């Protein structure tokens, strides 16, 4: 009988937790809003809150289920790379320019995800960057961040 007792399930609390934090931040930010401006948001906030309570009682405090298969140690760090690498790419783009940062981003990410041949990684990264550069910067005249090296604009 002890096995069927409802327990706190921390994994199931992640999405409701994020939603709750968002809701709190939202209403703190809009504390000075007039009733006219905020009534629609209050209505929806209440509705979302009611569903959130339902989820807390149904899933966050629930009968534990069997654990899913966990990732192999080699794969555990890869999602972290996918999270961090783009953040670094976006942060460095204004300084390195679109072309160079994209090339570095692709080359390193290929390598970190298992592309062992540096030459192949470099060729693929260069080709994709070049195609994007021609399409985005030269043809579509998009104002992507660029690096100026003397008279050469990358």
């Amino acid at each position, binding site marked *: 009988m002890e096995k069927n007792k409802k327990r706190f399930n921390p994994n199931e609390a992640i999405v409701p937790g994020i939603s709750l934090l968002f809701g709190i931040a939202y209403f703190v930010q809009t504390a000075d809003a007039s009733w006219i401006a905020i009534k629609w948001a209050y209505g929806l906030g209440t509705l979302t809150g009611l569903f959130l309570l339902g989820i807390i009682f149904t899933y966050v405090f629930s009968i534990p289920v069997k654990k899913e298969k966990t990732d192999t140690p080699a794969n555990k760090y890869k999602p972290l790379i996918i999270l961090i690498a783009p953040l670094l790419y*976006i942060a460095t783009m204004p300084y390195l320019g679109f072309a160079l940062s994209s090339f570095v981003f692709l080359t390193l990410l290929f390598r970190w995800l298992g592309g062992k041949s540096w030459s192949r990684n470099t060729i693929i990264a260069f080709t994709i960057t070049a195609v994007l550069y021609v399409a985005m910067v030269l043809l579509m005249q998009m104002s992507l*961040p660029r690096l100026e090296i003397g008279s050469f604009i990358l």
Partner: protein
Amino acid sequence: MGIASLDVILSGLGLLLQPEHLMWLPLGMLAGLLIGAIPGFNDTNFLAMVLPFTVYLGPMNAVVFMMACFCASQAAGSFPAILLNIPGTPSNAPTCLEGFKMTRQGRAGYAMGLSIGASTVGGILSALVALVITPVVGIYALNFGPAELFMMAIFGMTAVGSLTGKSLLKGLFSSALGLFVACVGTEFQEGYTRASFGFFELYEGFPLIPVLLGVFGFSELFSLVGEKNLVAEGIKKVNGFGPIIEGLKASMKHKINMVRSGLIGILVGLIPGTGAAIATWVSYGQAKQWSKTPDKFGTGHDEGLVAADACNNGVPGGALIPTVTLGIPGSGTTLVIMAALMINGVTPGPSFFGEHAVEAYAILFSLVVANILLLPIGLVVARLASNVTSVPNKYLVPIIALFCLIGAFASRQMLFDMYLVVIFGVFGALLTRFGYSVPAFLLGLLLGPLAERNFFWAVEIGGIDSFLRPIALVIFIATIAVLALPVILAKMVRSGKTALSGVETIENEDENS
């Protein structure tokens, strides 16, 4: 505004078939298929970019070229949705649900064939309906006031009920959260900026394209990164035209589904301010409710893909009707097409069919011919595009990540949108992992501003009584029916199973005796 004689209609066809006009159709198709397949480039962005160049083409060539681009980019948006789980346009999001699953099962070519078949049929149907009823029906679109549009948004939301699948509670929570997240940004009544968290980039709310690229494209990378290939191991990859033709043939088995979805596309496209993104979800939800195998939706099911793509290409014809007849563009894309006409000295509106009947019919015929051309040109482009499944994930994952980030930047040219892709990518991955409905969340985000604006307008104009107008009531009844149908169907399935088990028990008893 009356119906033109056969001579005028045939003159319109004759005008289009002149080589100097006709040559712009395949060119527009090719451009639309190639550029429309780039994630983040929706058809509106693409046509807006093309617009300045069309000034040099002359009014007829410009509009023919743009109509071809419009049809092709609508269809091409499905290619990255099927192959990479990146919706080319917001309306391709339901295609991701089925198409990408098929790709993972080694059926990318088949899915592309299905998509092209459904897009062609939906597009031709839509073009023919537009051709026949444009002069007559356009005027009725004016009857859609704020109350009807609000009800339409609610109807779209209830269609989510059929998408939520495993947990209704989590599905409803996802859509409510989507609606709530849509409350970020400047509200329309007082111009107050609600919770922009100090970012001027959020003054207009969360931009749809980066959110879409995040929750669909980027979130998928977290699971792809742990696998060697896009296609699950042990599944033989089949290349060449064979699977595409097979998919094309299979799409023809879903005639009723395609016609129903195409008609949904036309009807929703007809209502100004709605657009393909809402239509495809409604169509997908309806296909699931009418399906004999609703449990297969979301697992790579033909019916879901056919419904989404037939509807997606059904929208242009519908959206064109109020644009041409009333001068009210049904979507952002038709707004650009209207601008192209106006730049070239032609003003669409109630007098358009009276003053420029031949040109008006030529434009409508261009939509029919463009959709016919979609089949051969689309097949060749699909054949080339399906090779992407042979690329190992170690190369594909970084490339998808880069395309998602650049696609997000392309929509507003802001670095901030790239951060949004990462944030919503993580959030989308969490939603998927814990059984929440990503489509419901997105639909809430999409419909939020539309629902809010029209609700308050309706109340201000006519009070609560506005929601009791005949069209609003019909949509409301349809909404209740949509909510009730899954419950009724589930009961029918249960009673059917009980009856079946009863029959089996009796048969077993007979055999034993």
